[in-house]
């Protein structure tokens, strides 16, 4: 489900690289001291050159602080290029790697039928795919295409836990720059495609293959053709309402999908009536969801979702707290650097010079600790992200469950329809036998009714088949969810812990050095 590498080694973390001598030149003219967080670019991604003009008199070597992350994966080290390597998919996926990049603005030509004069601009993204049977594809898609893909998958794979697509809305983008937004979207789209590719069923779908490989316009029909469906529905509605003939019946070919707007207005009304009847425990015995195992699991999933939500929230708060403490530690270090510099410049007595070097010693340690925290956090975010991802997955589960209920509702509605059709047929037949020689119009009606019944029977069988199919999908997906979740959570815990250990060890050694260097003051006191 996650498709991320999950191998973890418990090797000893690599020993911190040999540290530079921390002698700070006391007469070093310090230009404006530059706090770690002030410049726009993240120094971890773009480490300053050794001869950088800013920073501290003798900045701790970045090699001290940056070393292989402890989560055991080989994902991008912080000194890699600014965009991390795209997530690889699962070992069974036909796709090795999918990346989304190179956002470009394009102009939509003013179409003749377009209601909007002139053209509108939109962003397209380059989708590069490496396939397992070695191949490489590159296509351009816009966000609307992703929506189409998602809709088609939802239709074709009812009952499956299909990874939810990124939101349409931008929400808090008032503050965000266009560039940031595009980057966020790009990142989200990339993750989305990777997750799709990693899904055992969806990953092999034609829809996805077409999306990733077909050049030019996306050859998937957009599901919601609002105008035609409304027109279509309006035309059919009167005949359906008057219940005339076989055209009134819902055909088997239609029950494969839940009732949506447009065409299926009448069906929607019927099913709504049915669900109300179900709720009120109406006359007909409803088809109860008797699968107790399913109900239990559903409850468990709901419970899981709730706990995931809380845990996800707290994980975010934890990460923020780690970030804050790291920042403050850095500010503290900065303040002490300034003090040290000041005392050095103004020193009249030796005691001042000694104190100045103590200040700088502490400042250096504090700054290193601060950078450590930042690194720690970057890794923590990656691990704890598992919680957020599974929370997002709950949406897919809800969809799958509602696929099931709507399929069930269709079955129930059809059964109820059949019931009333049979009753009408019986009544009509009973009435016509009373008339000697038969009543030609009535007989005709009875035959039409029988035809409708036949169609409805077929539809019912189809609906039941569909329902069973979805049930099975639900079941196997739930199993997969449990299995993969176990692996992913285990990986998360391990990664989180190993990460914490690594950085705590490092911090301990940084401070141990200061303890050693200042131990004379404690001895004096005793």
């Amino acid at each position: 489900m996650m498709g991320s590498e999950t191998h973890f080694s418990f090797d000893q973390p690599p020993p911190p690289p040999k540290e530079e001598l921390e002698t700070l030149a006391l007469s070093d003219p310090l230009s404006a001291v530059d706090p770690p967080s002030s410049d726009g670019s993240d120094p971890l991604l773009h480490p300053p050159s050794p001869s950088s003009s800013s920073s501290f008199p003798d900045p701790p070597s970045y090699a001290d602080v940056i070393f292989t992350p402890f989560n055991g994966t080989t994902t991008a080290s912080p000194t890699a290029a600014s965009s991390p390597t795209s997530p690889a998919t699962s070992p069974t996926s036909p796709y090795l790697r999918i990346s989304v990049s190179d956002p470009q603005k394009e102009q939509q030509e003013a179409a003749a039928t377009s209601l909007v004069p002139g053209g509108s601009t939109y962003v397209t993204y380059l989708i590069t795919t490496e396939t397992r049977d070695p191949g490489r594809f590159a296509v351009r898609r816009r966000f609307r295409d992703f929506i189409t893909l998602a809709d088609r998958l939802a239709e074709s794979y009812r009952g499956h836990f299909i990874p939810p697509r990124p939101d349409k809305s931008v929400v808090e983008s008032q503050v965000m720059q266009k560039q940031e937004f595009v980057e966020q979207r790009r990142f989200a789209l990339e993750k989305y495609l990777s997750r799709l590719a990693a899904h055992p069923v969806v990953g092999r779908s034609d829809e996805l293959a077409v999306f990733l490989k077909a050049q030019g316009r996306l050859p998937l029909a957009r599901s919601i053709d609002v105008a035609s469906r409304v027109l279509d529905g309006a035309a059919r509605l009167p005949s359906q309402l008057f219940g005339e003939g076989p055209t009134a019946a819902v055909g088997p070919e239609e029950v494969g999908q839940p009732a949506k707007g447009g065409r299926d207005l009448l069906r929607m009304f019927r099913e709504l009536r049915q669900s109300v009847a179900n709720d009120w425990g109406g006359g007909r015995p409803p088809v109860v969801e008797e699968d107790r195992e399913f109900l239990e699991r559903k409850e468990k999933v709901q419970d899981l979702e709730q706990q995931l939500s809380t845990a996800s929230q707290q994980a975010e708060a934890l990460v923020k707290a780690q970030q804050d403490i790291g920042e403050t530690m850095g500010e503290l270090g900065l303040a002490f650097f300034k003090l040290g510099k000041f005392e050095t410049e103004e020193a009249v007595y030796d005691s001042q010079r000694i104190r100045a070097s103590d200040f700088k010693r502490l400042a250096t340690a504090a700054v290193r600790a601060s950078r450590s925290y930042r690194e720690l956090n970057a890794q923590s975010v990656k691990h704890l992200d598992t919680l957020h991802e599974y929370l997002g997955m709950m949406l897919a589960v809800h969809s799958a469950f509602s696929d099931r209920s709507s399929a069930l509702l269709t079955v129930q509605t059809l059964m109820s329809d059949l019931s009333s059709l049979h009753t009408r047929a019986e009544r009509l037949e009973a009435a016509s036998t009373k008339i000697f020689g038969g009543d030609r119009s009535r007989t005709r009606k009875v035959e039409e009714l029988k035809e409708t019944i036949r169609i409805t029977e077929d539809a019912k069988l189809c609906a039941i088949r569909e329902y069973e199919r979805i049930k099975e999908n639900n079941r196997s997906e739930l199993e997969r969810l449990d299995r993969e979740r176990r692996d992913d959570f285990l990986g998360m815990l391990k990664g989180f812990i190993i990460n914490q250990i690594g950085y705590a060890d490092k911090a301990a050694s940084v401070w141990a050095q200061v303890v050693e260097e200042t131990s004379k003051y404690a001895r004096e006191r005793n």
Partner: protein
Amino acid sequence: MISTTSNSGSSSSQSPRSPSASQQQPFLSVTVTDPVKLGNGVQAYISYRVITKTNLPEYQGQEKIVIRRYSDFVWLRDRLADKYKGIFIPPLPEKSTVEKFRFSAEFIEMRRQALDIFINRVASHPELKQSEDLRIFLQEDEETMERARTQETGIFKKKPADFMQLFKDVQSKVTDVVLGKEKPIEESNPEYEKLKHYIFELEDHLAEAQKQAFRLVKRHKELGQSLSDFGKAIKLLGACEGDSLGKAFSELGSKSEFLSLKLQKEAHNLLMNFEEPLKDYVRAVQSIKATMVDRANAFRQQYDLAETTKLKEINLDKLMLMRSERAGEAEFEYKELKAESEEATRRYQSIVKLMSEEIVRFQEQKTADMGLAFHEFAKGQERLAKEIADAWRSLIPKLEKCSSS
């Protein structure tokens, strides 16, 4: 010279940062301990036990215990400031302005520690330790103390709170007075000028460092809190999982809560042994500024008197030349004034001399204080880091079991 040999006879609750008096005779060691809340409502206050151990003849007996409150300490400080001009009087902790914080355990402990340090600094200062007021403070019964305190309050027409306000007013005037902005009449001593600017800039730097230290304490508390919340949430999440994985979650949650406590503890340690010394440093600098005000005033006084005396002398000569009857009176006045002038000059010079000694002591003292504070800080951080590493490490075998099962 402050002797640093420890005093085996001193109570264990004496703050480790308090300078211990010399063990060889004579010795004088004080402990401030056992804070107790007395009184009700608005009148409520904290009283402390002050235990004095000494072999000095001026003091009654080997050990004496008295009960003192914060305003008694303020009285002592004010008296010392009044009598020992030129000496950097050890600073007192501030009066709390936030009502509900006034009786929090943390605040009381911080104050107790600060008072202990204060009284010991006074008791080990070569000049201040000889103060009669110190003896009164350490020895007299509570009624005598109260009488002395309220009497002084009357004379000075100010209460501790007012003094702070006055001090603040003085602070703002200090810049003018000390930096000689008010009048062009100031001593032109380049070394002293340098010192003045040093002190003023130092205060700014220290205030910043202290601010960050205080913030760091808060961050520790916040991290502790979120670890606790996170631990709880993880435990609940683990309940959704079965068997070994569920257990692993539960253990992780417990460790998280455990570490939360460690963080709260470290926050407290940071506050007492790192942030407080920095605050103390700031206060010490402010005390120096007050001394600088005294020096400036003394300088101006001796200068004014010297000028006035000169004029009087000229006037006297004139009168004597004119064989005026008023010459006798004038001569008498002149002699008086001259004596005053010489006295003022002596006072001023004494301040100058004392200050030069004090500044050396101050620098040495602060290097030692900061060194110790850094040591405690680093020790605390190291300890915390080790606890964190150990706690998480203990989970690894359990996680290993999960993956194999």
